[in-house]
């Protein structure tokens, strides 16, 4: 699905990613954990195409295409989805209107016909139910006046609507209470198939009780320094990151 090789990225001249390697296959869920400042959100931003970051070295192959050569919207159209750590409020832009535009632009990109209004509304009903998002919220301005939990559920709702190949959840769990966390996890688990993949970026092990990862990676100082099974997350939660530093002699 995605193969990241020796990825280096800088922001304002400061190197954040320092040779990151990661391969994610279809049907897999990967968790990336790491201390503050390790480069977790930078990785998400670079993959989504945020222009503040400069890639200085490395390659990213996304299902046979060179991801780094594409504009943000084309990455999305090829099936990459980023659930934002801080979803943006956009006053006056209706959630479902923009999603309809997005879906139809993606369809056009793929040479498919536009989705009918009826089909679209049926999909909105189905997918908003999946994340228990009030259909009224679905038609309001994007994230405006949403609570923290509603914003994160709206991210998963959009993910459900866009049916991406690869989803990157950037700290989607932070700020959620246990009920909202379960709803979000349930959404992700329901959408999981052997054709898509998910990268979960998180600080906390808690989410991984609900979404079981196939691999847990430790991102430290711009590189993945350790990879293990789901139990690694528990160990990190318990012991912090210092032991890894020692183990790796970093």
């Amino acid at each position, binding site marked *: 699905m995605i193969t990241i090789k020796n990825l280096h990225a800088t922001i304002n001249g400061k190197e954040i990613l320092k040779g990151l390697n990661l391969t994610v296959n279809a049907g897999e869920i990967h968790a990336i954990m790491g201390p503050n400042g390790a480069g977790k959100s930078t990785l998400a931003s670079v993959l*989504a*195409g*945020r*222009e503040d970051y400069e890639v200085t070295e490395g390659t990213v192959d996304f299902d046979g295409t060179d991801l780094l050569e594409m*504009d*943000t*919207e084309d*990455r*999305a*159209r090829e099936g990459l*989805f*980023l659930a*934002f750590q801080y*979803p*943006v*409020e*956009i*006053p*006056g*832009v209706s959630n479902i*209107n*923009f*999603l309809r*535009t*997005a*879906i139809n*632009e*993606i369809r056009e*990109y793929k040479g498919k016909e536009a989705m009918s209004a009826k089909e679209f509304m049926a999909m909105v009903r189905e997918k908003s139910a999946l994340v228990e998002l009030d259909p009224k919220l679905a038609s309001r*301005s*994007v994230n405006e006046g949403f609570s923290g939990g509603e914003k994160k559920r709206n991210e998963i709702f*959009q993910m459900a609507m*866009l049916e991406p190949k690869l989803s990157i959840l950037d700290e989607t769990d932070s700020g959620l209470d246990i009920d909202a966390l379960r709803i979000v996890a349930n959404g992700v688990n329901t959408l999981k198939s052997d054709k898509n993949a998910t990268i979960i970026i998180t600080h906390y092990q808690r989410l991984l009780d609900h979404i079981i990862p196939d691999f847990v990676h430790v991102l430290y100082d711009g590189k993945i320094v350790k990879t293990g099974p789901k139990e690694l997350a528990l160990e990190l939660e318990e012991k912090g990151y210092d032991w890894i530093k020692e183990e790796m002699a970093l």
Partner: protein
Amino acid sequence: MKIAMLEGLAPTSILLDEKELNSAQETLATNQLPTTRMEAWKYTRVAKLGKTKYVLSEDDTVSSIDTYKISSSATTFVFVNGHFSEELSSDEIPEGVSISPLSACMEGEIDSTNLVLEGELFNALNTAFLTDGILIDVDAKTTLEQPIQILHILKGEASLSNFKTIIHAGDFSKAEIIQGFFAEDADKAFANVTSEIRIGQNAFLTINKVQYEAENTSHISTEQVDQGKDSTFTINTITLNGGLVRNNLNIAVIGENCTTNLNGAYLLKGKQHIDNHTVVDHKVPNCNSNELYKGVIDESATAVFNGKVFVRKDAQKINAFQSNGNVLMSDNASVNSKPELEIYADDVKCSHGSTTGQLDEEAVFYLRARGLSEKSARKLMVSAFIGDVLDKIENEDVLNFTHKLLKDRFAWDFE
């Protein structure tokens, strides 16, 4: 005469009040064009108007008004370079209203003005050299089913049109006026327009004003509105083209229990300069005013907003809201926004605010990350921004026409 641009212009033949003509002449004789040293003209240079040799063009017709018709159902009056075009105008006038070009009015038929002439050079110019105008008198207790539409077309080189609209909305009447300003093969032409509007007791008057002249034309307009008790006045000013545009909107609320709505949308590009100066003067208690002006400024264009709300002593229980928002689409675009409140009463609810900024780039990125092209993302956001104002326009024809102009001129397709 001290102002060069006046040389060779023939005085008006409209039968205006003698005293007013004298007052206008006096102002012209003793004043110069405003300069940026004057507070009211600080951000708007009109010096180039003084350098142009204007002519009162006799050209009074166009081949078709199809592209200018804002509403197809309205009673329509067409003026080319300020001259009334009978053949392009509606034959029938609805019942309950009398409408006449000022050129057809007899002596004494045109009421004395509520327009300030003293020290107001453009009002004086308008009066002294008035080309023509229209008098609309809506009878008391009359509801006009269809709007009255006045279409103005500027044409030719350095044409000067001095035009006056007089509206009397009778007690308990309800009417809508559409004013459309256009240009056809006009080069450096200048529309200098005044409106005198009196709104009777419990009357409802709506004005939809669409300004779509050309990038090298000038337009200065002054609306003087007197609002009687229990009345509702709404004016929507949509400015989409015009090189230099200055709108002076002066509303005196002189009766209690009035509602006043002022909405403005302006979209600019090129080197356009658009200046909206509004005054709402609450002279009496128990009234509401709502003002919302929003602009999208691209390329090297500049916009000015100066909104003043007065709440006079003893004008208690006033709710006055004023808001101006601007989006700058380029590094060379600029805005001068000055919302002002002057309150002399102590039991009022007033607020004002002004914002100017660029489109939220984080929001553009968010939308693009969902698969929208950058163009679509920006369009959605501009549409949402200006939509706040366009939502206030109740007349579907005006709204559709506005959307068409937005598409034609800015390639903004919001529908």
